[in-house]
């Protein structure tokens, strides 16, 4: 069992608690950097998707996991980022390095606008409002004619940095990895500073957050801005991974998948978004191994993937609402204090229905 002895306040503020933790994460980074030597292009592309989804997941995590505002329409911001980026590159010749942050900014501003409109909404209202926003955006892109390519879609040019075209899998892999690590740092910085704490305060108790001076509407909107900007950033990368954009790629199913992804990973943690992204990208691969064992009729059915996904979610909600990361913490704890583990140490509190209605 390893106990962290804290020797200074900085240990709780710095990126890593101690050398051991730093070593772990640098180890992961090293493995990620060496991946192109270890696996072939197909798996590099898959990993690229993991990083891109993790970026979008981190964006949604800021909104839903930290500030407590649920979004059923985050694919819309991914779409806005992807389309803004592609349109700027192809129609206006904006260089890649400029187009990516601009597209993220545009998406962020769209998020800000939606956030302002929805600043008084909670729970279901917000869920349906964001869903409605996403459906409207999808519809607008679909009927955008030549400008967006409509339902016919539009092709995406390759990544070009200072005149060098990056089209090999490993080249794109490094671009995606680089952006992903950058975003991880930004989000980590957010969680250890005033704005991040303000969001958590809003999530857990609006009334006492307000009492402590948190401007609720402002930080809700800020969360919307950051969240949509990151989703848009993921969209710019996703555009290059897709090669071809069409509004159907960013439909409602995709929004729901993003939300469920961070829930499975573990809501309210940075790890959760990353775990969720790995889960959602690895699930089809794992299922394809399992399918070999199933009778042909069942294995061939196209509903099997979503059935498995839905069932896994149901099981998680029933038995482990803290998600994969929550489960990991428990296993970690189990071995740390072996053989002293008690079920009670993580028992969920039950409360009776506490109504928020006054009547």
């Amino acid at each position, binding site marked *: 069992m390893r106990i962290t002895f804290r020797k200074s306040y900085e240990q709780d503020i710095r990126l890593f608690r101690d050398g051991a933790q730093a070593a772990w994460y640098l180890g992961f980074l090293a493995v990620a950097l060496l991946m192109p030597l270890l696996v072939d292009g197909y798996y590099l592309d898959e990993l690229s998707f993991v990083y891109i989804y993790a970026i979008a997941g981190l964006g949604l995590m800021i909104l839903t996991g930290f500030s407590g505002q649920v979004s059923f329409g985050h694919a819309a911001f991914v779409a806005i980022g992807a389309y803004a980026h592609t349109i700027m590159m192809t129609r206006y010749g904006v260089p890649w390095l400029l187009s990516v942050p601009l597209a993220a900014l545009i998406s962020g501003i769209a998020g800000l606008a939606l956030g302002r409109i929805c600043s008084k909404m909670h729970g279901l209202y917000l869920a349906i409002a964001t869903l409605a926003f996403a459906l409207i955006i999808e519809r607008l892109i679909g009927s955008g004619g030549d400008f967006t390519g409509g339902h016919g879609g539009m092709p995406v040019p390759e990544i070009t940095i200072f005149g060098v075209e990056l089209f090999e899998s490993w080249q794109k892999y490094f671009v995606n990895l680089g952006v992903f690590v950058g975003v991880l740092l930004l989000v980590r910085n957010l969680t250890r500073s005033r704005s991040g704490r303000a969001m958590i305060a809003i999530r857990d108790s609006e009334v006492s957050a307000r009492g402590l001076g948190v401007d609720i509407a402002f930080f809700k909107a800020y969360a919307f801005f950051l969240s949509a900007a990151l989703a848009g950033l993921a969209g710019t990368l996703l555009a290059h991974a897709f090669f071809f954009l069409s509004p159907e790629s960013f439909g409602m199913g995709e929004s729901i998948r993003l939300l469920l992804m961070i829930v499975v990973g573990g809501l309210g943690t940075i790890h959760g978004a990353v775990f969720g992204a790995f889960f959602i990208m690895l699930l089809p691969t794992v299922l394809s191994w399992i399918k070999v064992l199933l009778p042909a009729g069942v294995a061939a*059915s196209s509903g099997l993937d979503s*059935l498995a996904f839905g069932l896994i979610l*149901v099981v998680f909600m029933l038995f482990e609402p803290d998600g994969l990361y929550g489960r990991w913490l428990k296993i970690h704890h189990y071995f740390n204090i072996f053989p002293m583990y008690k079920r009670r140490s993580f028992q969920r509190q039950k409360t*009776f229905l506490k109504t928020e209605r006054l009547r």
Partner: protein
Amino acid sequence: MTGLNFADVMQLAIIGLAQGSLYSLIAIGLVLIYKATEQINFAQSEFMMLGAFFGFQFIVLWGMPFWLGFLLAIAVLGGIGYTYDALVIRRMTGQPVFVVFILTLATGIVLRALAGMFWGFDSFSLPSMMPGTIDLTGVIIGWDHVIAILAAALLSLALFLFFRFSRVGIAMQALSLNQLAAFYMGMPVKRLTSSIWALAAMFGALAGLLLGPIALVSTQIGFIGFKAFAGAIVGGFGSIPGAVLGCLLIGFAEPFFDTAFPTLKGVGAYVIMFAVLLVRPQGLLSQMHQKKV
């Protein structure tokens, strides 16, 4: 709105009302559950889908008499709703509302996948309850549309009377005010809650069965359930008359909206919802209040 004569307007209006009536049948199910338990059932539209599919199975595939198949499908969904609450949702008592959000959303995915595996992912249509049309001085309306409107109106009335006068209905209302107090008063809280889920699922099934002859049925029809959400929100979630009113409003306005703004075809319900929420953030007839400290 140019190019529409009176008959066209009437036709659109009645089609819209029929559509709105179906939305309100789904929404009634949502609001019933919300009022009793403050849980949101995102699988409600999948209950509707299953209702249509079971109807298809009984009437078309097994050749049962229409009414028998119709009622049987509703009964089956009632059973599914009851069991779902008893086996799954009940375990979530006392958990945050968000967990139930995700749970029902995931259940929806499971039900869609299962339905697709059993019945396929193609669309089909259900036989009509009363084929043919009715001619109202130049306005030609399918009987199916009329029946949808009448059914929704009658059922709303029946539900109103049920909550007003029947013992069980009053017990359910008490439940929605205070679960714990209802339990202490010796009410069978668990059974009542499951019954409400059953009732909600039956309303969903009915919507599906009535929708079947009007529109094509597939695993994707679940998505029109979200328009019922929009309608219920417009009316003010948490009040049944409000939800019905909101759904009728949305259904009624939709065909006109689609005609007026073809670029936004299909998402008119949501645009209207935003417009209403901007003016009245709690919906038209709201029953939600600020939390007390």
